[in-house]
């Protein structure tokens, strides 16, 4: 019972929102669709929900053609960024909505609906709020009601469109963990749209990265983070430092620094990337490219170093013990990245 998206395309007027996207979500998997705004991730989610029809391609779930079904027939739970709760209904009636609109023949009895709503309220930890109206709840509580409402129809698939986008950072983190627990408890296949790489990497079993309507990489968070397919993804996944360099005869040159490259490295002009926290600071006599220290600030448990190298600003985030005494504003240091990834310059 897996979700298979096969070369789906969609254009709005002349603007292509999705171009030939294929991917698969396994039964019970938590899949994140990650990408910048305009990458087509929400369009893909809306196609899965039946709120948008693709121009071409196929979508099946457990072998069944989803595109042949209307949104109301798909039994797919959708959670929206701005909750989309029914404001004139209590929390309990919001959650019961999907059951109460069923045709009489398949509609559970009042008592049964009440019992199911009670179970869901416990699952989303809102037992005492069933008689409240959405306007009387906080943003985090509203989103939990929206999730319970989507789960009430026992969906074969749960779709979440930036569900935490409108919440503040602390609530976001709490809800994220909690959502993962709910997913593990219910085991429902979940597709989650976000533009927040940290959220996607933290939460998902696999991450699919979209750019300009195309799927550019899909894989487990660790794999995607450690081996980004291209410069865009490396940059997008965050905490990246980019340097311009040149490769010739197995040697990479960045400024006056020379270092050997692996055999499969691209030749000529390259973009060299490393993570902000993956570098060693040496004295001017040591290994690495030259950088002028411009500033320094405490950021949480780490220290942020503002540097300038090759005429461009760059930022490092290091543990306090990794910053030697001579790295002070006004000084000059050499930076040796622990691991560099090279992509042919665009």
């Amino acid at each position, binding site marked *: 019972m897996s979700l298979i998206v096969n070369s789906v395309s969609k254009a709005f007027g002349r603007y292509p929102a999705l171009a030939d996207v294929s991917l698969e979500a396994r039964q019970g998997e938590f899949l994140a669709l990650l990408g910048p705004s305009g990458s087509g991730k929400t369009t893909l989610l809306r196609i899965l929900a039946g709120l948008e029809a693709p121009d071409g391609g196929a979508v099946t779930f457990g072998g069944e053609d989803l595109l042949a079904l209307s949104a109301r027939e798909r039994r797919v739970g959708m959670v*929206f960024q701005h909750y*989309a709760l*029914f404001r*004139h209904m209590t929390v309990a009636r919001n959650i019961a909505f999907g059951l109460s609109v069923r045709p009489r023949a398949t509609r559970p009895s009042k008592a049964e609906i009440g019992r199911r709503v009670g179970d869901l309220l416990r699952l989303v930890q809102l037992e005492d709020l069933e008689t409240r109206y959405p306007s009387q709840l906080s943003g985090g509580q509203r989103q939990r009601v929206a999730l319970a409402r989507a789960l009430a129809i026992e969906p074969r698939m749960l779709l979440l469109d930036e569900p935490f986008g409108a919440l503040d950072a602390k609530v976001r983190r709490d809800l994220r963990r909690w959502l993962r627990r709910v997913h593990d408890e219910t085991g429902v296949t979940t597709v989650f749209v976000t533009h927040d790489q940290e959220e996607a990497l933290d939460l998902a079993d696999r991450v699919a990265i979209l750019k300009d309507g195309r799927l550019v990489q899909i894989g487990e968070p660790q794999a995607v983070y450690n081996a980004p397919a291209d410069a865009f993804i490396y940059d997008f996944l965050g905490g990246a430092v980019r340097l311009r360099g040149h490769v010739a005869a197995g040697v990479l040159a960045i400024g006056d620094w020379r270092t050997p490259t692996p055999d499969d490295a691209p030749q000529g002009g390259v973009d060299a990337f490393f993570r902000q926290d993956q570098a060693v600071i040496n004295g001017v006599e040591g290994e690495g490219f030259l950088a002028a220290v411009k500033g320094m600030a405490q950021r949480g448990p780490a220290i942020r170093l503002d540097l300038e190298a090759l005429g461009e600003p760059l930022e490092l985030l290091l543990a306090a013990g990794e910053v030697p005494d001579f790295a002070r504003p006004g000084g000059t240091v050499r930076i040796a990245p622990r691991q560099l990834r090279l992509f042919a310059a665009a």
Partner: protein
Amino acid sequence: MTLANVRAGRRRQAGVLPGFRLSMAITLTWLSVIVLIPLAALAIRPWELGLDGVWRTLTDERVVAAFRLSFGAAAVAAAADAVLGLIVAWAIVRYRFPGRRLLDALVDLPFALPTAVAGIALTAIYAPDGPLGALLAHVGVKTAYSPLGVVIALTFIGLPFVVRAVQPVLEEVDREVEEAARTLGASDYQRIVRVVLPAILPAILAGVGLAFARAVGEYGSVIFIAGNLPMVSEIAPLLIVIKLEQYNYAGAAAVGLGMLVISFAILLVLNLLQTWLTRRSRG
């Protein structure tokens, strides 16, 4: 808390509503001159007849019939406006079609037209020899010079109130909420009746209240089409004018007072209903 703190607090509080005293004074003066004093005069004048006289005036069968027609026709017209206005507002908000802007502008026309012009135009159309009137007369329905004609005129007058009350609220209805209903398995009918209508019900009620209030007091457009047969198609405002022409000022004021009391009671109920509905969804 020191005195300085208290002062600062008070100053801040005053800042929330700048010029409260001035604006309240203007409001009260305005309200008194325009609304309260004339109404007070209306409330005092009838008692020249004595309690007994007022009672006799109001229970006179011609007055009762006029009241029944005025409030009955206004209620029917307001109800018709609720349905028609909702459909018009729906068309303007939800669909994109050529001439939409034109239709949007046309809605206000009953506001702008002198009511007498509207009345004469309606009469010309619905009179037994008018294009629509002849057609309806053919199937045995008498429109002009009957209570039905009164209802038609009042419906025409009240329509813009409902459209203009519903339109902005309908525009605000979140499309995602409707999409949520669809993904939860609601049919189009369930989506409209259980999600959209409850959201705009306070606005519909507000529009109906305005249309009803306007219809009760409407004079110009009705008297031409009504035919003004005592006991059949004579509206209460016309009765007031007739009493005035007979120099029966106290009697006219008594009828006016009766209308005022009934109208106020009905509008109050509508308002309370609307407040209750709104509070339910906004907390």
